[in-house]
């Protein structure tokens, strides 16, 4: 960016250079469209298998780094920063990427936004009982998030923000004050958790003053087990999970709600 600025300060020939510079920049901003299968075939004929493998590995690395911070990956960024000149064989590269994630890491790359083509990685493996109890330190943010998700779930999917703030206050986590562990609590909940797609924070229309509500985000829907949340609630309140009949059905969709019949789906 600063280079453009410097060029614009000088005269004449630099003007042309600037135009071609900005053209070059625009080129990579051209929205990416999936190549046809014949284009892919032609593209594959021009590169070695090793090159394709290498590109796929770079994509895997890129996605893993992004996912470390739980930032969803945009296809446009992937193409611009990693795929680059190999965009005509994009489908083949992604096929291998998905395979690698699945076979080597037990992870699944899921598209959470089909319009903007945004992906997140989710864990496909069952957690190992004997090992998870050995965890050194559990991230406190996870605990906080779990509480919030539980409240939203028990309230059948949407909760006015006021209720969340009150619940947290009862746990001595006051969104109005700087917290020793979480820092700016409001920012953590409404910004970080939302960006990571664990929560959704949406305006409630026609509210004066403006009120927002919390819902589960796409990542939570994919990663968090509703039966587990209900089980946790059961332990907390010393009740059977089934005693919350509506929430129990929310957690076990294969049981079906009374009404339009649903084809039976095997439980995970």
């Amino acid at each position, binding site marked *: 960016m600063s280079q453009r600025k410097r060029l614009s300060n000088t005269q004449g020939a630099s003007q042309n250079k600037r135009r071609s510079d900005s053209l070059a920049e625009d080129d990579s901003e051209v929205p990416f469209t999936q190549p046809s299968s014949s284009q892919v075939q032609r593209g594959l004929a021009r590169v070695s298998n090793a090159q394709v*493998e*290498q590109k*796929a*590995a770079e994509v*895997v*690395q890129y996605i*893993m*780094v992004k996912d*470390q*911070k739980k930032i969803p990956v945009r296809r446009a960024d992937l193409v611009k920063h990693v795929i680059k000149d190999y965009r005509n064989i994009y489908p083949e590269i992604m096929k291998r990427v998905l395979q*690698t994630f699945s*076979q*080597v*890491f037990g992870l699944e790359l899921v598209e959470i936004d089909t319009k903007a083509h945004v992906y997140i990685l989710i864990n496909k493996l069952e957690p*190992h009982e*004997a*090992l998870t109890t*050995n*965890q*050194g*330190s559990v991230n406190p943010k996870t605990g906080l998030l779990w509480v919030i998700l539980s409240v939203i779930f028990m309230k059948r999917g949407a909760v006015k923000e006021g209720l969340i703030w009150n619940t947290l206050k009862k746990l001595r986590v006051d969104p109005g004050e700087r917290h020793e562990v979480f820092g700016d609590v409001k920012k953590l909940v409404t910004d970080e958790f939302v960006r990571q797609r664990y929560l959704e924070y949406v305006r409630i229309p026609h509210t004066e003053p403006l009120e927002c509500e919390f819902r589960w985000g796409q990542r939570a829907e994919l990663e968090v087990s509703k039966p587990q949340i209900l089980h946790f609630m059961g332990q907390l309140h010393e009740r059977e999970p089934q005693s919350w009949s509506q929430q129990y059905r929310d957690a076990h969709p294969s049981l079906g709600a009374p009404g339009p019949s649903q084809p039976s789906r095997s439980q995970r």
Partner: protein
Amino acid sequence: MMSNSLVDEREASTLYKHCCDIHKVPCVPDKLDDFIDTINAKLQLMFMQIRKGMSEVNGRQYYALVNMAETDITRMSSDYADNELELFRKTMDLIVSSENGKISSTDALNIADSLMTKRLKKSEAEQVLNRLVQDKWLNEKRGEFSLSTKCIIEMEPYIRRMYEDQVKLCHICHNIAFQSQICDSPTCGIKIHNPCVARYFKGRVEPRCPACDEFWPHEIPEVPRSISRR
């Protein structure tokens, strides 16, 4: 391994058995390293490897999932600011040049005064050092800092390169040695890891240096209790 980054041999064996059980494959305990070699073959393209190393404290073997792409401390750059990395580098400098791989917390904190990048207050430096311990790059025991097992396994190539002239290998196991004992004889000066000393000299009435045969003057530590599963 991705969530823990470091497991000891026993945990690794348990994990291996669990994998075998889930896929209904007979588990041969001795084949753990072969199993890991197979995984490493797949990880290589992504510049990742599971590497094995010994703890300088308890002598046990550990497995760490390591990023091979970074050849410098910059592997930590997503978690630490520039001046924090400088603090870590300088802490490592001190530890490497120390006699027995340990430095006092006072010495570590004093580094804050000599940083070339942005200055750190002593209290801030203390926070950074605590974070480094939490993230398992450093060990802290009784007010002394040392390099953690994870740090040594992960940064071994970097350490060997950066500190080529200063770093010595353990005479017994041939890996880089920090928490160790040194032969007093001026012409010898070999280093042996504390756990390697314990194992090598176990039961010997008169411990002698394996290289120069001089009397080994240091206190021989106890062999760390290992949970053997043969």
